[in-house]
């Protein structure tokens, strides 16, 4: 019965893995995109529900310590499944309107989600690698979904080439660490006594691999092209679920495998956080394409999150997890609305000038967009503010005041490009003759839910922060 219990610890993985295969078969035998959509939603919702209950369940290791469950891992699963579920729901209308509604998309999304789930649950560098690869390969395919669009194909190829390269770094890092410690288990690596050249080279390469996945500057080059080229709702999926998964795994690796080297990697992350915030924000300032702007903004957000990693305390990790949660909510929301506007003129209707005067046409959508963008700026009473506040506070507590000051100045600069969208939506006269149609009920419901959560966790974050705070005793 022991093994049956072990299976329960990876129940979300099993559900999503089975769902991926099921949806693929469904496509082969019925070819019905509708059925595929419905079953994807149901399976994802089930996995999300399981992950949420796991939050309050026990923590520990299973499958010969390859897998960690409960606590941070469970929260990572919640983030991944939220990202998956919401972007799948938003995808249907988008793909239908832009002419790419095919069933296999859903199975690819599910396989990517499977990889992410494995990633956040990994307690061993080999599992980390498996997770990252399963996730990435599915994402390469998804990025090139719109086959007859040059940009989309370019994005896929670019992502694939750079991603393969980064995976090489990661794998090399894992190999060197194995050489230095004789094991790929996170705890065994932490116990390494002799920290020679090989060890440090391994740590460095591992960091590079992760920096690529979380798109830290200077490993960010792929992000804007891929985010712009991919279908918008898939971008939402990539920007939230895969980012969150990579960050959670990064936390697990840093806190479990490299706790002794904290002062060293903290300095490295400090530097890259600084670069990421400054460059991400500056490049976002000059973007005229909303999708591209959001891509750079996600780079900038990665920078803020890295402040928390640089602080490297239990409080900082729980702040990062909260930030990721808020980030997931507001990014899916914003991308969802960008996708909604795209329906009306087709793929890549994302130039900022196209947005002129759209705010008043569908007032509720306009208000929701404002909420998501203000939350990204980090203005109370939205969840984005609490996330930023907690990360900054944890860093100030660790004495990283200089970095935090750069962070707040960078986020002050970010106001300009977020507000620019609102300025166009509300304060300029329309240049197009678009009449916006009402989005479907389900679409609207998801957007409203995201906005409601953004506000709720901005006003009453205590529930979540208490929960995240309780992880620290177990995980770190």
């Amino acid at each position, binding site marked *: 019965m022991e093994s049956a219990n072990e299976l329960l610890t990876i129940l979300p993985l099993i559900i999503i893995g089975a769902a991926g295969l099921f949806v693929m078969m469904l496509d082969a035998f019925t070819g019905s995109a509708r059925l595929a959509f419905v079953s994807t939603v149901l399976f994802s919702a089930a996995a999300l529900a399981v992950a949420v209950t796991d939050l309050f369940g026990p923590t520990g290791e299973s499958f010969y310590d390859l897998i960690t469950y409960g606590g941070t891992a469970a929260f990572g699963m919640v983030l991944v499944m939220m990202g998956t579920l919401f972007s799948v729901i938003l995808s249907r209308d988008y793909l239908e309107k832009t002419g790419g509604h095919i069933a296999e998309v859903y199975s690819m999304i599910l396989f990517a989600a499977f990889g992410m789930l494995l990633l956040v649950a990994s307690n061993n560098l080999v599992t980390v690698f498996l997770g990252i690869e399963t996730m990435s390969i599915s994402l390469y395919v998804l990025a090139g979904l719109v086959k007859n669009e040059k940009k989309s194909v370019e994005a896929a190829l670019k992502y694939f080439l750079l991603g393969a390269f980064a995976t090489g770094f990661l794998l090399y890092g894992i190999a060197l660490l194995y050489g230095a410690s004789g094991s790929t288990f996170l705890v065994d690596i932490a116990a390494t006594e002799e920290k020679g050249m090989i060890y440090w080279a391994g740590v460095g390469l591992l960091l590079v691999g992760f920096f690529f996945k979380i798109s830290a500057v200077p490993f960010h080059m792929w992000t804007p092209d891929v985010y712009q080229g991919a279908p918008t709702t898939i971008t939402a999926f990539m920007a939230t679920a895969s980012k969150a998964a990579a960050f959670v795994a990064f936390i697990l690796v840093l806190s479990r495998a490299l706790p002794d080297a904290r002062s060293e990697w903290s300095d490295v992350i400090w530097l890259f956080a600084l670069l990421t915030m400054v460059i991400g924000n500056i490049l976002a300032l000059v973007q005229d394409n909303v999708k591209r702007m959001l891509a750079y903004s996600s780079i900038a957000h990665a920078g803020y999150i890295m402040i928390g990693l640089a602080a490297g305390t239990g409080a900082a990790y729980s702040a990062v997890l909260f930030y990721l949660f808020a980030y997931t909510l507001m990014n899916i929301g914003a991308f969802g609305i960008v996708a909604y506007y795209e329906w009306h003129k087709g793929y890549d209707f994302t130039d900022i000038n196209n947005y002129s005067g759209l705010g008043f046409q569908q007032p509720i959508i306009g208000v929701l967009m404002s909420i998501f963008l203000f939350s990204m700026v980090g203005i109370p*009473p939205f969840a984005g503010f609490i996330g930023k506040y907690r990360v900054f506070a944890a860093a100030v507590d660790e004495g990283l005041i200089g970095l935090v000051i750069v962070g707040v100045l960078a986020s002050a600069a970010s106001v300009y490009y977020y*507000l620019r969208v609102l*300025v166009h939506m509300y304060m300029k006269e329309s240049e197009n003759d678009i009449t916006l149609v009402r989005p479907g009920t389900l679409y609207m419901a998801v957007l409203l839910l995201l906005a409601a959560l953004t506000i709720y966790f901005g006003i009453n974050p*205590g529930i979540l922060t*208490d929960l995240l705070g309780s992880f620290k005793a177990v995980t770190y």
Partner: protein
Amino acid sequence: MELLLNIVIYLPLLGALLLLFIRQDDWVRWTSLLVTTATFVLSIPLLLQFDITSTGTAQYLTVGEPFLGDWDVKYMVGLDGLSMLLFMLTTFMAPIVVLSSWTSVRKHVAGFYSMLLILQTGSLGVFAALDLFMFYIFFELTQIPMFFLIGIWGGEDRIYATVKFFIYTLVGWLLMLVALIYVGFAAGNMVNDGIFTTDWQLLTSPEFQLGLVEQTWLFLAFGFAFCIKVPIFPFHSWLPLAHTEAPTAGSVVLAAIALKMGTYAVLRYLIPLFPNAAIAFAPMFAVLGVIGIIYGALVAMVQKDVKKLVAYSSISHLGFVVLGMFAFNTTGAQGAIIQMVNHGLSTGALFIIVGMLYERRHSRLISDFGGVAKMMPVLTVMFMIATLASIGLPGLNGFVGEFLILVGTFNSEVLGSPWYAVLAALGVILAAAYMLWMFQRVMFGPVTHEENKKLTDINAREIGLLVPIMIFIVWIGIRPTDFTRYSEAQVTWMLEDTQTRAETIAGNAAGEQLPSWALKLYDVTPHMAASMEPVNETKATTTAKSKEESL
């Protein structure tokens, strides 16, 4: 009464949500008027029940549960002498602002009024908040509606104005956020068992003693944010732009309420939290205040646009407020508080009147008017009263504030020089010059433009919204103690408490090793001199002590 305070704060927000479901523009207007009037009426008992002798603690205090997890950050609102008058000013101005935009706002009416109402809740929260973190949250809540108010319903150059306004303010406040976090942790370690706290009561308790070097940096970070918001010269450049481009209601709220958040924050947080730094930097702020007074007045004098003129006069008036607060005596601080109210009333009235002229004539250039008094006699009377109040004519409210501030500054021990008052008084003379000259060119003289002959006088609604302001302008002018008594006890207590704490901290710091700039900075003030002198004498003993300890 605690419940009533919360109802007053959140009623406008509820009203804003209600407006989302109303389609008819007229219904929107009436609903907003009803909501704001109800808010005002409900706030009156708060004023009547207010215990003016109580000091230290706030009244009608609501303390919520900590909502940020393991940190002691909680919802905390209440009123005390520092905030009572400004809170009432906010509820009082709201229905007037709603009425003043009755006909001038024609597009997206529901959006406009819901923004105004959200702004109202934010402003009330700013004045009632007694937790630094809550203050920050409410403050940001006022920024979003203001951004839209200027940007959507503003004039020609509105987008530049609103983006500049928003970013400029946010830069300051985000830096303050970092300082706020630092203060929270420091206070947690000193007075709250290691738990992060931003509770105002704890931050002003005598056990909370920040070192002099820490104080300097934190004071500068907070001061920078508040300087931008006030705005204090040289951080004022967003203000004339925002004022000019904003719709009438936006300008009125900005002048009457939003600017007060900066000066109020100085009095509530900047001075009590960092007592030593505040005293050491007082002369510097006073100088900036005086520069603001004279600079604002001189620039106002050459304006061609009436609204811009009023905007620059605001900078001048707020210079007085800053000067009064940094005089560090009850007279000065009392003058500053009543001047905040006065400025809200008279400048608010001036913006409303300019708005009325603009609505009829579609111009704000002084040269487009002339001889308007003949066509609009009622408006002329109102305009005259507001103008004279703004100048500071005895018998009207402006005089009371400016007089108290000048007396306070003159007697100030911390500033220690009569020159501040002398130079500031120059501002009063300049105010008479630019205001009266403007008034004469707009209202009197021959009618030079044909269009002006068709101007109609203000209607019943417009008279109705101006009269209450006029009543208070005269009332404060004649019986200022009816108003100043609300803040007197608390202000006196707060200043004494601040100075006591400053002396304790300076005394403790005497034994510490401080960088030379800090020694110099905290030596220059007469207050500090006595307590800082023992540094050399005690040095021998402290080094001996530390040797003992190390053994």
